[in-house]
């Protein structure tokens, strides 16, 4: 085995307009080694992976695959040279079976070979067996569970025996048992002698699997070494953990009145036969900050959608003393109930400013200008990004924009659905501070849905715990920490 690394990246740089996404990145992966590339959202790790694969063209730098510089090549040439990639999202061929999808990856890039070469079938079957798809290889992808679709992507990526395998968020959306299976598979790539690059948000997810970790922040390498060493690294800790999030004092306790603004009485929601919400009764008082915590799938989004009139429900929902039943979603929003959805729903091809202006479309010009100034004060980063397309913002910035756009509508009741989804702790801290200022400085009522208890507790006046479609606990944050703290997860 030569001492030269299988993949050598030197001085890799990519700019998007004024934003330097990747700045002079160096990394090495040896044959039979697993490197974890980690970094919070917007750190440039995904861009780095795309640059290696050729999906984005680097502005500068070298990507040497077993000594050959492939930087700037078209992706199909890089793939043929021996790099395989497992995308986080993919669209398989739905009219073909799993086996045919795998065969696709084995075909030559030729316009003249109409027939599938002999041996391809056998090889595709062997690969299907290897990744654990043996029993379902003749089924269509749409009938498979999510984990099997991910297996199929792994199968396609290793089909042509690549020297280097890139995996984007290997374990996203998988259960603990599936994570174990996938880890085993990725380890087997290492024993095959491939160089493996795992891209993920945090060290914890990949620590057990990797030989080495490289941490990125703002396009640059901030630490490299064993998983333990990187987790202990001072810079990494600062980037990820920020300052310690502590419970914020509650000056607003007096401000919260006892008049209920929103009241749900025995609300149930069904999706077909599945019950997504069962007899939920909650109350949000004027100027109160209420957090609904619960794991993914507990029913938080359904609850909010019922309030916003997006899904039909049984039971009664009243807002400011009047029933909301029978009102269209737009009419509910006009009454001051504004939902900031989990999926953000930004207009990607519009600038930050245009997104905000759309939110404030119904306001008189003068009011809109004041509101905008206030929001730029609340989220200074948005002011500097005004002209940037929303699509090109980092995840954290997009979330801030989504909240700001909702606030442009001057809501009386702001519903925030999982604002922390997919964001790194350092961004959470910024968001947390913004929410705190919001609560201190305005008369707004907030209903927050969160999985992340650490984020949801500090600001809340009251907390509801939603589990399997039902409210199972209600109380103040301090009591939550005492009574439910350990049992939550």
């Amino acid at each position: 085995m030569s001492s030269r690394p299988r993949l050598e990246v030197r001085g890799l740089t990519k700019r998007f307009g004024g934003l330097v996404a990747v700045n002079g990145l160096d990394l090495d992966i040896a044959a039979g080694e697993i490197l974890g590339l980690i970094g919070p959202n917007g750190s440039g790790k995904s861009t780095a992976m795309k640059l290696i694969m050729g999906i984005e063209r680097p502005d500068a730098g070298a990507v040497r695959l077993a000594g050959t510089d492939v930087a700037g090549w078209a992706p199909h040439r890089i793939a043929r040279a021996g790099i395989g990639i497992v995308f986080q999202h993919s669209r398989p061929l739905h009219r073909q079976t799993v086996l045919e999808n795998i065969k696709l990856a084995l075909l030559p890039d030729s316009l003249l070979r109409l027939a599938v070469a002999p041996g391809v079938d056998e090889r595709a079957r062997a690969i299907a067996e290897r990744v654990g798809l043996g029993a379902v290889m003749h089924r269509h992808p749409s009938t498979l569970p999510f984990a099997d679709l991910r297996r199929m992507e792994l199968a396609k990526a290793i089909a042509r025996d690549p020297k280097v395998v890139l995996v984007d968020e290997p374990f996203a959306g998988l259960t603990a048992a599936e994570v174990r299976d996938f880890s085993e598979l990725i380890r087997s790539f290492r024993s095959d002698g491939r160089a493996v690059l795992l891209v993920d948000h945090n060290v914890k997810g990949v620590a057990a699997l990797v030989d080495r970790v490289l941490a990125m922040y703002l396009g640059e390498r901030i630490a490299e070494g064993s998983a333990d060493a990187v987790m202990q690294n001072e810079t990494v800790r600062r980037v990820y953990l920020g300052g310690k999030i502590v419970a914020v004092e509650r000056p607003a306790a007096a401000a919260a009145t006892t008049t209920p603004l929103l009241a749900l009485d025995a609300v149930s929601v069904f999706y077909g036969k599945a019950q997504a919400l069962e007899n939920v009764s909650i109350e949000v008082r004027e100027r109160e900050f209420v957090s609904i915590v619960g794991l993914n799938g507990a029913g938080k989004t359904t609850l909010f959608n019922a309030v916003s009139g997006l899904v039909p429900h049984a039971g009664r929902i009243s807002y400011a003393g009047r029933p909301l039943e029978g009102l269209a979603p737009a009419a509910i929003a006009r009454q001051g109930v504004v939902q900031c959805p989990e999926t953000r729903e930004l207009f990607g091809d519009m600038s930050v400013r245009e997104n905000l202006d759309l939110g404030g479309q119904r306001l008189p010009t003068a009011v809109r200008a004041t509101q905008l100034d206030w929001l730029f004060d609340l989220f200074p980063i948005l002011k500097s990004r005004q002209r940037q397309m929303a699509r090109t913002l980092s995840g954290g910035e997009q979330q801030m924009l989504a909240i700001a756009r909702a606030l442009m509508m001057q809501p009386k009741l702001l519903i925030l659905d999982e604002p922390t989804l997919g964001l790194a702790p350092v961004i959470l801290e910024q968001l947390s501070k913004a929410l705190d200022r919001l609560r201190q400085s305005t008369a707004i009522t907030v209903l927050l849905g969160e999985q992340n208890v650490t984020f949801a507790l500090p600001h809340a006046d009251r907390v509801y715990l939603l589990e399997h479609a039902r409210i199972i606990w209600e109380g103040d944050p301090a009591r939550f920490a005492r009574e439910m703290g350990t049992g939550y997860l």
Partner: protein
Amino acid sequence: MNRFLRSRLFWISLLVVAVAAVLPLWLSGYILGVLTAAYYFGVFAMSWDLLFGFAGEVNFGPTFLIGLGAYAAAILDNQWGLPIPVCVLAGAVAALVGGLLLAVPALRLRGPYFGLVTLVAVLLLQNAIVIFAGVTGGEIGMTVPDVLSIDPGVNYWYALAFLVVCAILLFGLSRSAIGLILQASGQDAIEAQALGFNVTKHKLAAFCVSAVFSGVAGAMLIFYMGTASVDTVVDIGIGVQVIIAAVFGGRRTILGAVLGAVFLIVASELLRPLGQLNTFVVAAVALAVILFFPDGVLGYALRRGERE
């Protein structure tokens, strides 16, 4: 399972072709004439489906390719009196060259822009034909001295044979390794590239194949009708009918396009007594199918088969 489906499809097709082949024994010359036009239309629609259903590119100007083939053949025959096979071959070459000149720059564009370029190309061709009226006959059109046959039955058999050959070639291509790569390129170009396929090369090839089949079919249609005019082979309305036929029959099925073409042409003939209403009714039915069965008639049937 798939093999069974394929063989069942094969036997059904064989039966349909056999029945179609003996139709001239019973049907009148008039009805045979309608079917003959429908078969050429079927080839237009199949070529279009190869590009849209497989390569994922929407060509809003199928009549650019059809018209190039038709007019190239008509001009050669009208001006120099070249034999029909030579003219048809020239039509294929003209469509291929014109298609390449259009596709090479257009395929670099993303999203709806490719479609817009193809749409503009039709208008350009239409204008060029009117401007160079001395050679092309302008808005009136031009007659071709040679025709395939004056017997409707023979014309019908020519069209049927041509349709069957084209169907076998295009269907075979769609089920080949290249068809698989094309589908992958159409659905997720980035992933197809990451799997090592030159997506541009494959899409360009699909466009060339679509151009050649469209051009040949356009030329054949001219020699069946005896005239070439903007209204019959270039007009955007004709292109829209080709697109409706392919989508109605079923995207990504190739053979469905033939069903769609035959339905559109035959239905509008049958409803001719309705007068102005006839095109409206046919369009409404096609719209309903597209709205409620976006996979088209054959696509819907195949999906049901998959679920079984």
